[in-house]
Structure formats: structure tokens, C-alpha cells
């Protein structure tokens, strides 16, 4: 079981646009990933699940995955969560 813990960097936490980008990436990667915040765990490709974690900026979340491609998928998702996606909004608008 591959596992990573990361503090969410986006100003709005895992809501709104950052949540959308995260779930989009999880779907694209195609590896089943679980996101855990506190005692709640949800599939990374579930928008409702990710929103319901109520993750705000600075919250630590743990990502878990198994099997082929797990390490690479977690690396990609951790990289995404480590960026302030809200701050990047203006650039690609």
C-alpha cells in the first residue's frame, strides 16, 4: 500500500476549483486512490466525497493506493495538492 500525507496548499482548500482539478486528475490517472482527512476516507474520483471532507487550506490529507501505478499516481496528486491552485487561477483564465 503506497501512502502519502500532504498539507493542502490552495487558499480555498479542497473546494471549488481546486477540488475540481484534483478529482479530474484522479479520474485521468485511473488508479483507485483513497483520500483520508481525519477519520473520514473517500475515493479520490468522487467529487461529492472530496467536497464532504471539508478540507481547508493547511489541512493534512493522506492519499492511499495499491497496485501498479500507485506510486506515480500518488506523486502526481501530491504535487497537485502542494500547489496553491487558487493563486494560479488568474493565469489560465
Amino acid at each position, binding site marked *: 500500500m503506497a501512502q502519502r500525507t500532504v498539507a493542502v496548499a490552495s487558499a480555498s482548500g479542497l473546494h*471549488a476549483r481546486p477540488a475540481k482539478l484534483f*478529482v479530474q486528475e484522479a479520474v485521468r490517472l485511473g488508479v483507485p486512490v483513497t483520500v483520508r482527512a481525519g477519520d473520514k476516507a473517500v*475515493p479520490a474520483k468522487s467529487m*461529492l466525497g472530496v467536497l*464532504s471532507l*471539508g478540507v481547508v487550506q493547511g489541512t493534512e490529507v493522506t492519499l492511499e493506493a495499491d497496485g501498479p501505478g500507485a506510486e506515480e499516481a500518488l506523486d502526481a496528486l501530491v504535487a497537485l495538492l502542494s500547489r496553491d491552485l487558487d493563486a494560479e487561477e488568474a493565469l489560465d483564465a
Partner: protein
Amino acid sequence: MPDTPAPQPGFPPPPSAPGSPSHLDLPFPDGSGAASAVHAIGGDTLPGGGARRGRDPQAGGGATREHAAEGGHATDGGHRPEGERVAASGSGTHGGHAAADPSATDGGRATAGESGRGGVVERGSDAGPGASGGGTRPDSGPWAGAVGRLTGLGVSQGRAAGPLIRMAAPPRLPAPRPVTDPGAEAATVVKALEAVAEDLGRRATAVRAAGAGAGESSGEAADILEALAMIADDPMLREEAEERARGGLDAAHALDAAFSGHREALAALGGYLAERAADLDDLKHRAVAFALDLPMPGLPAPGHPYVLVAEDLSPADTAGLGPDVLALITERGGPTSHTAILARGRGLPAVVACPGILDVPDGTVVGVDGTTGEVAVGLTEDEAAEVRERDRAEKARLAASSGPGRTADDHPVKLMLNVGSAADLRPGAEGVGLFRTEFLFLDRRQPPSFEEQVAAYAEVFRQAETVVVRTLDAGTDKPLPFLELPEEPNPALGVRGLRVDRLLPDVLDTQLDAIAEAARATGAQAWVMAPMVTTMGEASGFARRARAKGIATVGVMVEVPGAALRARRLLQEVDFLSIGTNDLAQYTFAADRQHPALADLLDPRQPALLELIAMCAEAGREAGKPVGVCGEAAGDPLLAPLLVGLGVTSLSMAPVCVPAVREALAGLTLRECRERARAALA
């Protein structure tokens, strides 16, 4: 002043190519793939056939109080707080509550029809000749040719004309249907969710394509639509709905149950997530409509520019608004409703609280005056073209407007901005008259730290020389989750604004420290004021604490009639007053800001409100201290001269309103403004 790009006028071009394809895809016009076993619901299946949102008990129903704090989802919360979000949430009850009850809907409409019109007619005549410094009088020109006329509240200035189209209503859930083939129901569930996701995805792509180069708002709208599409695509949601279908529910009820479960879960989490619950309702309506083989509720896509008419608009509706929408008219809503805020942000003419508009048949050409609230029904194409031409000329005139605010005889009136964050700043004004700090922290579970606050305030201070900072304006009616305020039976009259300090004094202390530090670091002139101040004691206590932190200029907002009556004494304690006309009207007229049937009672032209404003302004003149207005009234080009005539020294408004107010003031002398004020008070 900020060097952010100028606001896009946002006004769509006239229908030069009426046959050109719409930017929005037709919502499942052929119903392909939809379950065909649906009959029921007869005449209501026609899109826009007198359809209105409120008829569906689900439409605004089940609204929790969190949801009721419309301010939050009003601006598609979380993406970027838009100027008016909190202003939209002044009270605990949401229009949806009334809309949810069919009997209330009808009763409410009748009431609004009678009194609403009365109020607005008074308002129109009040404007007097030459109103708005060059604006067109509603009775002149192309308006004269209309066969019918409706009046509502003009909430977003500008004029437009074109064929009207009503938005399809959300589907009503029929009685559960006996299921013979659960597998087929489950398949329909999956298809419905896919269809909704595809539809929203297509709209997102269209909005993005249409908006390329049109500024950030289209990117934002596309983001919202994509996020909604991903919720419809959610594997958890799909599995739950499928499971329920396999368990014997028909597709529509299985979808309804699965969505409702998630809706309740989000609502229970409070704050930002509770606001997203309204989005789930919207998605549910779309999916259920597909399962029932009904037209997808939501925006029409006629393939030509049109005036959008609805009972009210949801965040999902408004995020999908394409450039083919010429103007908005809603039967419900008030000056601070979501529709109003969105329209002003986009520069779309809008009229709300317009009784009778839903009875006008689709395709009727209407003229809309978003300043006066007039809707001319049944224009000819020539008349419509003339309306558009006049609007173009007016816009060109406003685009050329610049400089500080002054009357025709050079009496200065500061024109300032209402902002929620640095992102809202625009050039062309004389500072920030209302910095709504609570916008920065709407989704927080933990109080924002001192450092974080300093950074957020400094970002605004660096871009504007003078900034009037309002300390956190929250309450149980517009919750900041980190405050964890207890529920109240009557939130508009409860612990809100400065009153929160009674329970949580540390919050204000930290904020005042952060404002003082950000001002020191940037060298900006930061004025600070407290919301919902009611007594002398509150004002002097606040002033003492703010000054002890090193803040030189301290004021209070006047939103409570009791404070207005004591304006003279208040100004012995503080350096300035800022009148919040939205709340002052609510409390003066004992009328809920969000109540759809009471919009006329909230009309700021009423003498009682003007008299309170006059008392504040007079007290300011005597004391030699500034008295500004930062409510919606300040951005209304017909009202602004009147406020100046009452003695108000600054007007703070949404950035998009500044040019028209500047031009309105420039067209009148101070004496004319005073005459207008005197007439209004008579």
C-alpha cells in the same frame, strides 16, 4: 488606485445574426435514450409553458437555514467572492421558502402585484425630468410603442430589447411507479446522470470557447459548470442511485433519493458545503427530468439572443448564462437577490420582482430598462432596434466617463468601491468605501490567523490609497463556520455584525491588530468601521479599541434606525458614518430583505428611509465629518443625486455602477440634487 484590467462591459451585442447557432446546446431536445414509459404531467411538459420554479414543492424546498443564507451560493461561493455576496444574505429567510409553498406563491404574487407596482410607479415619477443625467426617460422614445407595460425593480442598469423566453421549471416528481424491470430502471438512472454530466460539460466547453478573451468571468463560469458535471458523474452518487433502482424504486425516485441523501449530508456540514446543497438540487432536477422524459430544466437555448425570464435564477443557471442572454427579468427576487448581483457583475440589464412577467408568452419582444424597472411588452422589431441603439450610445458615453465624482457645479462626491477582496478592485474610483472582510474567510472552519489576515488586507491596501475596512460582518443569518455561532430563532434580529463581539471578543481584537499592521506595512490610509452598531456604548467601545490598536480613523455603519436617530451623538465618538441602506431599509420597514412579496417595502426611495439618511448627513455636516452610503442605493444613478442632495459626502458601490453614477452627478448641480431630495422627503 488598482491597475487591474478595466471591467468588461459585458453587454452582449445585438442580434446581428439571429440565425447563428446558440452557444448553449439544446437540453436533450429529442429525449433520446430517455425512459419512454412516462406520461403523466400533461401540459406542463412544454418548455416554458407558464412554468415557474416555485410550482415545484422541491424547487426551493427543504432549504436549511444554511442554504437560506443565500449570500454564500449567490456568487458560486469559493471561486471568487463577488462584490455583493454578503449583501445578499441580510436575513434568515430565503425567497425559496415562500416559493416552496404553492399557496404562499400565489398569495405572495397577488400582494407583490398590487403594492409592488404602486411602489415602483412612485419611484419612476420621483425621478423627475432629466433624471440620471442624460438617461432616457422611460416614457419617451421606443417605450411609447409598447402594447403593455410591467414594472418591477430595476437592479442592474442598462437597456435591452429582444424576444422573451421563459426558463423551464424543475420537474415535479410524480407518485412512485410500480417497477417491473429494476435492471431497466438502473440503466435509466445511469443514462440520466451521464446525460446531465454531458450537457453541463458541453455547456462548459461552449462557455469557455465563447468567453476566450472575454475576461475571467467566463473561465470561472466554465469551472463551475465542470464541477457540477463532475458531481453528476460521481461514482458514489451513481452507485447509490443504481442500488436504489435495483431495490425496486423507479428511476426518477431512485435519483431523487440518492441526490437528497447527499444534499442532507452537505447541508449538515454547514457553511460553504451547505451552500453547495442548492447545486445538488439543481442537478437532481436535471437528472429527474431526463428520467421522466421531460425537458431539462435550466437555460433555454433558442439559437438567437433573448431576454431570459424566470421566477428566480439559481447559481447553476447563472453560471451557464451565455452571451445570447440580453437581459434578465425575474418575477421574484429583490435588489440584493442573486439575480441582481449576478446581473450587475455582468453588466446585464435586469429587473426583479416583476409580477406578471411569467404570463407573457414566449417570443414576445420586450424592452427592458434595468434602471427604472420598466418592461415594455410587445415592441416591434424597429422599436427593439431603437432601444438597443440607445443602449449602445449610452454605453459609449459611459465608457468615456472618468475622473473624480462631482456635480455639474463641481461639488465633490467621492465615488468608491464595494469589494470583497483584491480581486474585485477596478480602476476608476477614488478608493474602497466598503471592504467586506468576511468574504475572505467564508469557508473557514478555523479562525484565520493574524498573519493570514495581514496578508489579505495588505493585498487590498497596496492597490487602493484609501480603504474603509468593515470588520467581520457575520451572524447566524450569514454564517462564518469558524465562529460556530449557535442557531437563533430570529437571526436578522440576533447576534450579527459587531454583536458577535459579545460572544467572541478575541476575533475583533485579532482583526483590528491585523488591519493596523497591514496599514503600517503598506502605508495605506485604512479607515475601520463596525457593522450593526446600535448604541452609543457600542460605538465608543469599538472606537476605543480600534484607536488603542493604532487605527487613526474609526467609524461605524448605520444600519439600525436607532443608530441613525442618534447620528449626532455617534459622531462625537467616531470619525465617520457609513450608511448601509439595505439593512437600514430592512429594519426601518420591518421587511425581510429576501422576502419576495415585500420588495416594494424595501424600495430605498421611501421618505422614512431618506429622512434617516438626511439626519445622518446633517449630523456629519455639523461635525465636519464624512457620511457615506455604501448600500445598493449608492450605485443607482437615479438615487445617487438624491443622496447627494441629502448631504451624503461619498457613495460606495459595485465597480460596474461607477460610470453611470458619475455621469448622473455630473449632469446636475448641487442645488438640483437638493431640490430632488426635498421633493422626495415631502
